[in-house]
């Protein structure tokens, strides 16, 4: 479970005493912070933080391996989740003490609400997962079986809750890629992507994930975009464009996909669909008043011109230049200077 703000519910009376008065810590000589004579950007620490880090410095300097050091590392991390070596020490303690990885994952979940955009937290989680579940152990299972594995189910639930709270959390989507790629659970991810896009067609993180799933982690050189898949993706993008034409994501997605993997399909397969949309009386005005429609035309005509002979090119380039003018004057004036530059570039390429 992800708790978003929960400072007081873990109040524990035994830990309300200063550490200097706790029997458990009586053998440790705390090490005060040496901030020099004239510290720069000094932080006005709370007494609690100052004391816990004094004791933490002492046990970590000694490389102490103990339950108390482990618990203290948790308190320090929760107070300052960017304490980069506290995480290193904590991971070492987990391994040296043989602690339960699932319990550690639960602890990470508990504190995550307060540190939901912290890099170290997410990397710690990824490292724990790799320790908990070796991908090789699932090699002979089907994707459906793998998704039922408790560790994987738990992970997908955790990251799903984070995305429910903040649908564009960069770390969360990155973590999903780690889980999907490590355990080969691609099918459920496409379904997840479509659910997210249905919830918010402007969620660019979800559109990016669609590309990730489509290519199933093959490099640009390896992935082959078939006509069938291209048509399906074009159809999908166009359907989503209809829902909200002035939305950069589907335009950027489909043009990027084709430009990278099958540039000829930009004018052979995408352009006819865009023209259809622009001629459709239900969508024409909404679509053709967006900068993305005109920008798409510039990209497509530019690509098309490359495939034509010098004699044939003229008409297509004229269309592209007109689109640049429309963008500069009417549909994307904030980038007027860019569209003028683009028009000149088209001319020079001629």
């Amino acid at each position, binding site marked *: 479970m992800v708790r978003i703000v929960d400072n007081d519910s873990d109040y524990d009376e035994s830990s309300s005493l200063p550490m200097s008065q706790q029997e458990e810590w009586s053998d440790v000589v705390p090490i005060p912070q*040496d901030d020099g004579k004239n510290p720069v950007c000094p932080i006005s620490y709370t007494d609690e933080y100052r004391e816990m880090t004094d004791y933490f410095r002492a046990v970590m300097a000694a490389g102490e391996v103990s339950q108390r050091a482990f618990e203290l590392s948790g308190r320090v991390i929760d107070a300052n989740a960017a304490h*980069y070596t506290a*995480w*290193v*020490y904590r991971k070492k303690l987990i391994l040296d003490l043989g602690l339960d990885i699932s319990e550690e994952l639960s602890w990470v979940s508990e504190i995550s609400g307060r540190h939901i955009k912290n890099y170290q937290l997410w*990397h710690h989680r990824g490292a724990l997962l790799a320790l908990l579940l070796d991908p090789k152990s699932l090699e002979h299972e089907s994707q459906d079986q793998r998704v039922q594995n408790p560790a994987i189910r738990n992970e997908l639930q955790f990251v799903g809750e984070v995305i429910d709270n903040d649908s564009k959390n960069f770390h969360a989507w990155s973590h999903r890629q780690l889980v999907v790629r490590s355990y080969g659970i691609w099918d459920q991810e496409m379904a997840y992507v479509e659910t997210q896009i249905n919830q918010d067609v402007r969620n660019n993180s979800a559109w*990016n994930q669609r590309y990730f799933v489509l290519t199933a982690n093959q490099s640009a050189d390896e992935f082959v975009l078939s006509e069938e898949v291209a048509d399906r993706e074009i159809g999908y993008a166009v359907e989503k464009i209809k829902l909200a034409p002035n939305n950069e994501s589907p335009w950027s997605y489909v*043009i*990027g996909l084709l430009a990278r993997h099958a540039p000829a399909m930009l004018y052979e397969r995408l352009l006819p669909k865009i023209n259809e949309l622009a001629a459709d009386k239900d969508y024409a005005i909404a679509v053709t008043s967006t900068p993305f429609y005109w920008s798409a035309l510039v990209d497509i005509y530019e690509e098309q011109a490359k495939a034509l002979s010098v004699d044939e090119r003229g008409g297509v380039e004229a269309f592209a230049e007109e689109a640049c003018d429309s963008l500069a004057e009417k549909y994307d004036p904030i980038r007027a200077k860019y569209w003028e530059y683009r028009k000149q570039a088209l001319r020079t390429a001629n």
Partner: protein
Amino acid sequence: MATQLAVDSHARYFRICLSGLPHQMTSLDAARMTFVQLCLVGLTALGKLDEVCSAEEKKQMIEWIYGQQVLGDGTELSAAYCGFRGGSLFGPHDLCDYVAANSANVAGTYSALCALLLLGDDLSRVDRPAIVEALRCLQQDSGCFAPHPGTTERDPRFIYCACAISAILGDWSGVDKDAAVKYIVSCCNPDGGMTQAPFQESHGGHLYCCVASLALMGRLDAIPDQQRTLKWALQRQNCGYQGRVNKPADSCYSFWVGAAVELLGGHDLVDAAAVSAFLVQCETRFGGIAKFPDEFPDPLHAALGVVGFAFCNPDGFPRMSPTLLLPESLVDRLDIKAARRSNNGE
């Protein structure tokens, strides 16, 4: 509507931050070095550093920075931990049996070197070979860099730090440039944007780290489709700059994306007035620039907002290098060749 930056107000803000940060900023404790750098960058970019910080104060700050240098004990084990710490909460220097207890971090090292240069230090007390060796240890097989030992973190932020460090020290022997370039190219997306690892979402912060790293390495030519990347960057402007498609404009991207645009040759293509107006809207009555209008400032958004504003209003401010958060005059004087604009093919 004001289109001028409240220079004196921001200078006061940076001065206050240098003197102390509130306990609510405890989560910055391991990155204090970077916030020290950012305050000094902000003051430098405003042309106010000498006015606000006396020679004596600068000397004191230099001492604090050197106090964070991790020198290692010459053993192979400690090599990867050398450089500058992010703050003084680690250590102590002379008492750690567990080597990770007193660890530098490439971001701390980069920030320290920049801050020292801004304060007029000559880097003579910097253990250059130790830093270069640490970089060599921290570069991964993939070409990317980890920030310090013991973490699975690795991404373009640390490639950038490694490149900036190498450029400042004039010593690239700690960086396998071909491998770093290869990794960056793998982070170039179909939409022209760049990101932290292959297949992740295009992001303005990583765009900067990738493009600036390539610029420092003299390898901007490695970008697969530079025109598409320039377009992606320019399309992040909706008034100010956003960091990702369909996200709100945020003042710090006027540096991350704005500087990338500079490096890609797009200076003349930006609607400078719109960026400037947005940044003025993000100014706060406390001094300092916030992430969004009507929020509290922080040194990162304040410094990067000032530099981003200066890119759009070059006549009003000292010229800052887009690759190193240092003034161009300093880059020239120190002959940091990698950061020269001429190196970037402009």
